[in-house]
């Protein structure tokens, strides 16, 4: 891990809009964050909040009818900073970064692997494009990767097709593909949502090891606060295209300032708190993304709404590493300190 300059990727005021039928969904409306080497940033939020669009923007894998309208994504690679948002989507430069420097694990291992190619072929494909390894070396590297992911009998399994793998094994094979070129950044979009908890624990163990041993910077997208508590160093809470609160996991989970973060934490049953725990549902539902409120996106569901909320609150630093988007943050700061 480099000292002092450990930022692997920074995103500044990113705005990604998606268009359909002459309507515009401002999926990301000014998002800023950093991913640090050897750390895990968890992005947490409900469906439709823009977490996956953030990942797709970084990987330049956005759907055709969408555009990065504003802001910058900077990859701090070994050869100095690269502005990813300025690169051509399918250009040589982007293709050299995608997969080699920044790799991604997708949510659904059942559909992300190509069923007509063997697992080994799909791993070796990465090595063929991104490394100078010869044919035999690629094969043995693929076997090594599968072995390190805990796949039994990798020499035989390497030539098998995805349908012969179980869900957990497919997800591990996908991580093997993602890790094949030792990327500096790993983006995981809900990597365990489709898996059972015992398999999820295996995947988390694996990701923790990667972070510790290779210093990989991890951006983990999830909707599960439990996963955040378990894995995150930093956390960013998203709601309808904005990061409403961000900071180190200890601060955000122990002393949340934004009403949405608080409501989210109050609405989930927590293991170990027994039957008497009170869960408070958040009233209403997320607004229509094509017809958003003008001000604070959470205002309609918020118990602390005031007239100021009709305008979008600015991002405010409440500590040097903790920021929040809420007009009434000072009041919430005061009672979080109690």
């Amino acid at each position, binding site marked *: 891990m480099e000292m002092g300059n450990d930022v692997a990727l920074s995103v500044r005021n990113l705005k990604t809009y998606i268009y359909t039928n002459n309507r515009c969904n401002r999926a990301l409306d000014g998002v800023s964050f950093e991913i640090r080497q050897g750390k895990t940033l968890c992005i947490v939020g409900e469906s439709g909040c823009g977490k996956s669009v953030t990942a797709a923007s970084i990987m330049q894998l956005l759907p055709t009818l969408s555009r990065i309208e504003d802001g910058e994504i900077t990859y701090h690679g070994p050869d100095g900073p690269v502005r990813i948002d300025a690169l051509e989507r399918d250009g040589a430069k982007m293709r050299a970064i995608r997969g080699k420097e920044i790799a991604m694990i997708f949510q659904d291992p059942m559909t992300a692997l190509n069923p007509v190619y063997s697992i080994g072929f799909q791993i070796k494909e990465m090595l063929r494009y991104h490394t100078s390894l010869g044919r035999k070396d690629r094969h043995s590297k693929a076997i090594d990767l599968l072995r390190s992911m805990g796949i039994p009998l990798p020499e035989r399994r390497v030539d098998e097709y995805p349908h012969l793998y179980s869900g957990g094994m497919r997800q591990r094979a996908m991580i093997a593909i993602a890790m094949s070129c030792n990327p500096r950044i790993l983006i995981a979009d809900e990597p365990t949502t489709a898996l059972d*908890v015992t398999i999820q624990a295996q995947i988390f163990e694996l990701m923790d090891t990667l972070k510790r041993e290779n210093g990989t910077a991890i951006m983990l997208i999830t909707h599960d606060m439990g996963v955040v508590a378990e894995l995150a160093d930093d956390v960013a809470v998203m709601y309808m295209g904005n990061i409403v609160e961000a900071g180190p996991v200890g601060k955000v989970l122990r002393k949340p300032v934004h009403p949405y973060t608080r409501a989210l934490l109050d609405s989930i049953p927590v293991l170990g708190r027994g039957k008497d725990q009170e*869960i408070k549902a958040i009233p209403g539902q997320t607004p229509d993304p094509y017809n958003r409120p003008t001000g604070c996106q959470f205002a309609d569901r918020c118990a602390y709404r005031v007239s100021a909320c009709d305008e979008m609150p600015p991002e405010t630093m409440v500590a040097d590493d903790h920021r929040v988007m809420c007009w009434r943050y000072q009041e919430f700061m005061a009672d979080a300190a109690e």
Partner: protein
Amino acid sequence: MQPNDPILTLRDVQVHFPIKSGILKRTSGHVRAVDGVDLDVYRGEVLGLVGESGCGKTTLGKAILQLVRATNGTVTYQGDGGETELTTLDDAGLFAFRKRLQIVFQDPHSSLNPAFTIFGSLEDPLRHYGVKTRKERRKIVGDLLEAVNMRRESMDRYPHEFSGGQRQRIGIARALSIQPELVVCDEAVSALDVSIQAQVLQLLMDLKREKNLTYVFITHDLSVTEFLCDRIAVMYLGKIVELCDAEELYSNTLHPYTEALLSAIPVADLDRKSQRIVLEGDVPSPVNPPSGCPFHPRCRYAQPVCRTDVPQLRRYRGKSGQHLAACHLIDHPLAD
């Protein structure tokens, strides 16, 4: 909850699905989805049925409702009119009986017919069970929608106009329309966002109190069961491996599988971080379950005896004196 008042009694229930292969479609083996389950569901309780995918929890839920017929064993219902043995009922008998047992399905997007209005979907059970006039049905459907916190007018709209949480509430309204006594909730909140999940959980609890219902709550999420259930049955490969009061399951875990399952759940509480017990490998195939204890290939305490003998559910003292677990290595079972 009266502990001695079972509403439903399952004895040695097995559901085996044949695997046909070859051109003659000969049976080459069986998927032992549910493999000998004894279970009592008490009147007025919430019984949680938890386990990983493929453990047979959904099949067991369907076997209770006779949506899947058990290949062996008995499912006995004790209602006001005495005992009824469900497994031997014919279609006509079941039709009359379905009024008492209802199910809420997992996926709110596929469990409502997209071509029917909400009223169309909800009036069907009412018509079949004796509400003759349309006017009356409209009134009942309206009341039901209000009971699940939706507007009466929603009944003339189509499923695609509603969000996932709203559809799940419509699913609940449909299950409750003919006033069942027992409702099986099959992963009823798993497909929902967390903030919506809390709304539906609260609704289910309120309705239970109001209408004096009994729930069998099938889920893979142990944080939800802790909050919701009175008793919890943990399943693994078609068998119940542990069954006890919800509180007891978390404070005095006996079975090694439950222990690993609990430790694997990410807890949204930084002060309660526990050591993960990582199980090796996957759940074995129910076509070819391991010999002896089905959990032994993944169990970190496994002994030679676990490979050869199938452990039976035995009773342990625990706090309630009603703690059942199936493991050779837990000492001091109570004599029956």
